[in-house]
């Protein structure tokens, strides 16, 4: 899977990605499939982080790619990187889905791949998993602007620049929102996990 953390339009590393997008626009099925493969995790994680429900996340992720297909002929690489353009679709679709369906129950169980990640110490692993679960809940408590930035940056893996393009904000504004959001998360997490907060400090 392609690393989405350093996506910046115009860079030499993005020439293969650009060729894929242009081939998909020309009707190349394999290119379209490659686009999907490169961005499905990104889209899904973003949807899950925003909606907190696996089923809703799957529905929305599927709808996002169909919207991507519909808008692909009109996409212009020079104006905005593809990942930013795709996540803008995702952002709008999540908002639309939430407006249509309201706030639904969030899954309490962590995904298996997160549970499996831990060290060999069961106690520490359990504590860490609980901390991660609480961190997800804490993100939801962030102000909307900070939450959007945090999720796009760390769930979708967008760069600051792409996050700014996705949200239609200045990069500096995104950096400020990210910094404030992370500080607030520390505040929210410290009373419950002082050791974790201490280690992070």
């Amino acid at each position, binding site marked *: 899977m392609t690393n989405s953390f350093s996506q910046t339009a115009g860079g030499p590393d993005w020439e293969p990605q650009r060729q894929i997008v242009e081939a998909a626009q020309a*009707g190349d099925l394999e290119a379209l*499939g490659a686009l999907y493969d490169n961005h499905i995790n990104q889209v899904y*994680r973003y949807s899950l*982080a925003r909606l907190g429900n696996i089923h809703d996340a799957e529905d929305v992720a599927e709808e996002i790619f169909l919207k991507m297909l519909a808008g692909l002929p009109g996409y212009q690489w020079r104006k905005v990187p593809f990942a930013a353009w795709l996540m803008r679709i995702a952002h709008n679709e999540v908002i639309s889905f939430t407006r249509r369906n309201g706030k639904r129950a969030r899954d309490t169980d962590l995904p298996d791949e997160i549970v499996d990640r831990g060290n060999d110490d069961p106690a520490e692993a359990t504590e860490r998993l609980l901390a991660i679960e609480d961190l997800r809940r804490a993100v939801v408590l962030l102000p909307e602007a900070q939450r959007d930035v945090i999720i796009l940056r*760390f769930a979708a893996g967008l760069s600051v620049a792409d996050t700014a393009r996705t949200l239609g904000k200045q990069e500096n504004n995104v950096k400020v929102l990210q*910094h404030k959001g*992370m500080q607030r*998360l520390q505040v929210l997490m410290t009373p419950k996990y002082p050791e974790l907060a201490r280690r992070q400090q």
Partner: protein
Amino acid sequence: MSRDDRLAQLLQECVAAYETGLSPEECLSAFAADRTALEPLFRQALSLRFAFASAPAEEFIRRTKERLLFAAGHEVSAAFALEPAPEFTARARHKLVQTAGATAREALRAVPPPRLPFWVNARRRLLEAAALGARPAVRPMALALRAGFSAAVVVLAIAATGLAYVVLQSGTPAIADELDILIEETNVVQQKLDAGEDVAVTVIVNLTERTNDLVQKLGDDVSPPDSEKLQDLIQQQEEIVEQVSGDEPAPELAEAKQNLDEASEKVTALALADSSPTATPEASAEPSAAVAGSPAATTPQPAPTTFVLLADQIYFSAEPGDATAGLTWRRAKTLGVSFVLPGSWKASGLAINLDGVLPYDVDTLRVDGPDGEADVTLLINLKNGAITALSGGEQIRARRGGVLGEIISQAELTTKLGSAGAVVYHIAASMEVALPPTPTPEPAPTETPATP
């Protein structure tokens, strides 16, 4: 660049390095100068990455990808655009033939092209004709063939009708049928002449001769057919004779003209007789006298061309259009009533199956059904039309007297008389009673039929 901007940039680079496979410690070591400020952000960022690192299910990824590609339409069109390999087609056909056997082999041998609906060809021809605008050019060969076929059709038609005529002549052909045959033949000749084709004079002479023979038979032992048809036929044949005569008519046409003149004279006389059935009393003197002295005669006198039906006379005639109950019917008519009777029944010893005028001297006519077929006796009042049926000692009022006499239902008659019920009902239903007589001049004493 502010401190926060710098930390954000370092954080992004540190996370990117972590994504490439470096451990967190290795990542932080790369930024040793800013480690103190960067480490808490980096660890929290990693925590957030872990928190949202859930990957979609493989099944979801596969399904969504299929739907995406399906929506793209390329797979669908590609799937339908695929054609089987020729080797596969041949192999499958051979396998099918071997499996299905002879029937399938025969069916697959030559499949006819689908037949176009008739209106497709009709529409095409119509459009072609409209495009041409004018009649197609005359082709001599086609014209000759068409003329030849037309002549053949005429000859065949005449031969067929002539054969029918001969066959009918051997028996007792109906006058109407013979008349129809003559009309048809005459029309064929007329059409041929209108098309500019030649018609043999002998054919025309034959037509006029047969027409005259038919007319001359009228009034002998058959009822006259529609006189208008006869007059039209004779007139059409006269026109045909005129048409083929030209400046120098063939000698045979004189015979045809003579035939038509004789026929026309006879038809005119019949028409006059038919148009004056109640002629003046003077005109009936001779036939009345002929029957006056023979009240008990059982043989009807031939109906003259003009006669007056007097009181105490009954006139029998054919009713060719009536085949009720599969019987041949005759109509009996007096001055007061008119009704039909089966030709096989007996009316007080009178032979009702022959045309003609018979005298009668009773007010009630007795009609008996044929022995062994209908054990029914009818008493028909010739004054008021009342009909009483006697069967098995039972007396049944089939029709009450009067102009509007009530008729018993056919179902009731059938219940009481069996199969004869339908016959009796038809007799009763056919009864027509004349309105009360208006004052008429008294006939001369010599013209009054004598009563026995």
